[in-house]
């Protein structure tokens, strides 16, 4: 119902005055939660995540081993600057404004290929969020090759028209620079300088908080799931005193190391001082563990079974083919000429009809015919799994454990979309990993197309699948309807040309039965391997316990015999020696 306008009832004319285009940007403004900007803390993470996703996608597509720096800098109580720099191929000058300041602009939405980003909303949404909360522009530095100057561009988004507004545009002699730090957070060697790359910097209203949903956790999980990535993370926080505007305590210029902090947060910190400001800086470098690039995924046509009626109509309309049969055969995967003809027959349509002319009723018949036709599963070379060896390398790099295993399942299909499940499991040493213990729920790290998912764990198919497995079969205790307990880190990755997120903020994977099944099978395989390990370890511990028990009493037995039989020390020693040999032989064979 239309709203009342002024005194009298609304008329069609008065209502028409209210009716106008809603720009996507305006829509976003009112629905920022849909894109992951609902809280200041989350906004910081989302901005980092979108920038890192873009950088990694660009590097991999260009076949470059990625090196990134992520710099999070607190400027005021609730104001932060996020800067992400990569050694990727760079962006040509003309594209920069559109990529960073136009929503729904990108290369990935229109094709079915596995990539981190999907819709072309992320980075420009982050920029717009910054613009809305601070008024600051998104600043981009990009250089495409040696010998060329870099472009330094500041853009804002025209929210009414969803168009970029360029504030400044100049050429500068910039090159991406990466400073590695050692375990103590101190600079480690000379900075590495790349010939090309992109740096994006966004100022925004945000909040920083440690923990499972922090930027710290995100970059660490990125490093685990992208073992071919080198990532430098630097977090600069203002101290309490400054934030309140009081004079900062005099601190040494540098070199004051803080205590090693939690393993999942930057491992060191030092203070810097300058012009009345002092900041707490912590830095960490995650070095790459493997030098192999992930396979570049192939782009595929949509599989007919994964296409809904509306999209089918759109595709027919957009087709460049002149006949229906050709349109079906050319624009879809797994559709041979023969199958196309068969479908046309089943739908009662002329294979030679013009695809753009296929009327509504006819496309519905076509849709039904497609669903009724048995088709080959979609090709799976469009997927680029991380790989078992790489998962192990990533886990071994960041989690100190006694046992690691990884499973990469064969590709499977849900609704015509190929996908592949990968699972890594580490049985950690509790004392060396914070938050892991025999009585703690296991840690579940969720990834979709190599992107860590930190929010809405409960709504995610991955969590549901983990809880659905009976871990008691694998020697872990598990409360009813909850995660099992134990010092276990589980890494679960879903690779797909189209990951079915439950919302645009890309937090949780929808629970299609095919996906849950694949997850379950992979988890069970990991579980079986874990059980074998735990069983062996239990037996080894048991043997060790028995050994020390036996060795505790044998000397007393010998001492008693010595006292009764008046034996020499040497004879006593022989008794001890012989008894140990005898008992260990029969009681400690593992």
């Amino acid at each position, binding site marked *: 119902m239309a709203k009342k306008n002024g005194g009298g009832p609304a008329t069609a004319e008065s209502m028409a005055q209210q009716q106008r285009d809603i720009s996507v940007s305006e829509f976003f403004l009112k629905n920022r939660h849909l894109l992951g900007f609902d809280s200041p803390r989350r906004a910081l993470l989302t901005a980092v995540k979108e920038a890192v996703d873009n950088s990694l996608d660009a590097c991999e597509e260009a076949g470059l081993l990625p090196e990134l720096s992520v710099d999070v800098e607190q400027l005021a109580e609730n104001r932060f600057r996020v800067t992400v720099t990569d050694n990727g191929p760079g962006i040509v000058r003309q594209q920069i404004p559109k990529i960073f300041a136009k929503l729904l602009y990108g290369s990935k939405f229109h094709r079915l290929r596995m990539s981190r980003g999907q819709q072309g909303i992320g980075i420009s949404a982050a920029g717009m969020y910054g613009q809305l909360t601070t008024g600051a522009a998104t600043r981009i530095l990009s250089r495409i090759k040696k010998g060329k100057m870099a472009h330094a561009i500041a853009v804002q988004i025209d929210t009414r028209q969803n168009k970029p507004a360029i504030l400044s545009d100049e050429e500068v002699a910039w090159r991406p620079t990466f400073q590695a730090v050692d375990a103590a957070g101190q600079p480690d060697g000379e900075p590495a300088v790349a010939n090309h790359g992109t740096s994006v910097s966004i100022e925004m209203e945000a909040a920083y908080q440690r923990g499972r949903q922090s930027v710290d956790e995100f970059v660490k999980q990125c490093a685990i799931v992208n073992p071919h990535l080198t990532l430098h993370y630097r977090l600069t926080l203002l101290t309490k005193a400054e934030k309140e505007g009081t004079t900062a305590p005099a601190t040494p210029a540098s070199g004051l190391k803080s205590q090693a902090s939690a393993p999942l947060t930057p491992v060191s910190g030092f203070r810097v001082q300058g012009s009345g400001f002092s900041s707490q800086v912590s830095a960490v470098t995650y070095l790459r563990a493997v030098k192999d690039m992930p396979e570049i995924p192939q782009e595929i046509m949509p599989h007919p079974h994964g296409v809904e009626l509306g999209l089918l109509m759109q595709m027919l309309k957009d087709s460049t083919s002149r006949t229906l049969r050709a349109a079906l055969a050319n624009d879809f995967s797994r559709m041979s000429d023969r199958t196309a003809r068969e479908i046309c027959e089943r739908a009662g349509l002329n294979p030679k009809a013009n695809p753009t002319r296929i009327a509504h009723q006819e496309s519905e018949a076509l849709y039904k015919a497609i669903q009724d036709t048995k088709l080959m599963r979609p090709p799976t070379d469009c997927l680029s799994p991380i790989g078992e060896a790489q998962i192990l390398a990533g886990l071994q790099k960041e989690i100190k454990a006694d046992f690691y295993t990884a499973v990469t399942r064969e590709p499977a299909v849900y609704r015509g979309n190929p996908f592949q499940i990968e699972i890594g499991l580490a049985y950690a040493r509790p004392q060396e990993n914070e938050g892991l213990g025999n009585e703690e729920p296991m840690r579940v790290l969720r990834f979709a197309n190599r992107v860590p998912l930190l929010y809405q764990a409960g709504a995610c198919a991955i969590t549901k699948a983990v809880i659905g497995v009976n871990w008691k079969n694998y020697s872990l205790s598990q409360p009813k309807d909850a995660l099992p307990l134990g010092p276990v880190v589980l890494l679960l990755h879903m690779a797909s040309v189209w990951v079915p997120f439950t919302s645009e903020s890309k937090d949780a994977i929808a629970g299609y039965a095919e996906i849950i099944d694949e997850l379950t099978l992979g988890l069970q395989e990991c579980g079986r391997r874990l059980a074998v390990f735990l069983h062996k370890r239990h037996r080894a511990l048991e043997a060790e316990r028995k050994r020390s028990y036996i060795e505790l009493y044998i000397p007393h037995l010998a001492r008693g015999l010595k006292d009764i*039989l008046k034996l020499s020390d040497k004879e006593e020693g022989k*008794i001890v020696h012989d008894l140990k040999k*005898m*008992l260990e032989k029969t009681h400690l064979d593992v």
Partner: protein
Amino acid sequence: MSKSIPSAPEIISKKAAAQKIVTVAGEIHTDIVKKHRKPEMSFPIRSLQNVRYDVKRGHFEILGKTATRTLSYNTVKTFAQSMRLLATTKNDLLDRDDIAGKREVYYNSKSWGECRFDEQPESDTLLDDIEAMLAINREQLGYIPEERGGEVTGPLVVIDQDPGSGKDIHIDCTKLGTGAWSIPSRVEHLRFEAGRAKFILAIETASLFQRLVHHRYYEKAHCILISMSGVPTRACRRFIRRLADDQRLPVLAFTDGDPYGYCNIYRTLKAGSGQAAHINRFFCVPQAHYLGVTPQDIHDYQLEDATHPLEEADIKRAKDALKNDPFIQHHKEWQAALDHMLKLGVRVEQQAFAKHGLNFVLDTYLPDKLKKAKFLP
């Protein structure tokens, strides 16, 4: 009561006992270092399952069943403790002619480090094992019981020895006033003079014993009174046996009329126990007979309204005895008595006679029973 009386048990010298320990230890040593096999210790199994009622000798005789403890992960601690306990027994008790109580054994082990006993029952059990393994009762190894051995009064002179000088000491058990003489833990060396006594009356409860002493019943009945205070200790059993053998006196037992009084107190007094199966021949009084209180006495002395219902444990005990106790199984009279009691569903105490007057028991009941002389075997 003219059955053949078994001879007194042999007394093993401390030297021989020590030698037995050396032999056991030597075998274990040889097994380990020469034969390279796991050493073993074997003991006779000490339970009613492994005894036979030897009718001729009148006591439980142990059967051949033995338990073998082979050295293993599970037994290594016990094995080590056994060796250390044997070493202590030999070196500290036998070689030095010393004695120790069970509780002292337990505390003594506290110097053994990891090998120590955590609770006294552990050391008690092990002591029983060693006793059985060596087939020497622990008193002869130098271990003295903690519990009291019972009390004696009546026309009896006990000839003991002064521990220091070794001189004889004559104890006249009629001249102890209102008290009584305590049976010591070791009775092998005692001699007796009891010319005026006609029989020995072994009494379960101390209070009834006190009543009989108070009224000098022993003078009237010419008997030696012994208070057992429940199941008689080894020393008490041994004392009665030696006294009865030595003075050729019949023994009568007077306990509460309940399954515990019959199957535990009286049966242990007469035939020994399963627990001490390996040494019953020393600690039994085959010449004993049962005076009362029998189930029939409940009717004969109108005690129906002075009884208590049998409790669950009583019923279980009686049924167990009927099923498993070789002594009860041998004696039809006892089976009849237990069945009778189960049928009545009641038990009766020694003190129940007070219903008819405090001294009814010594004025009427005891003389009556002695006159009838119809005792349970």
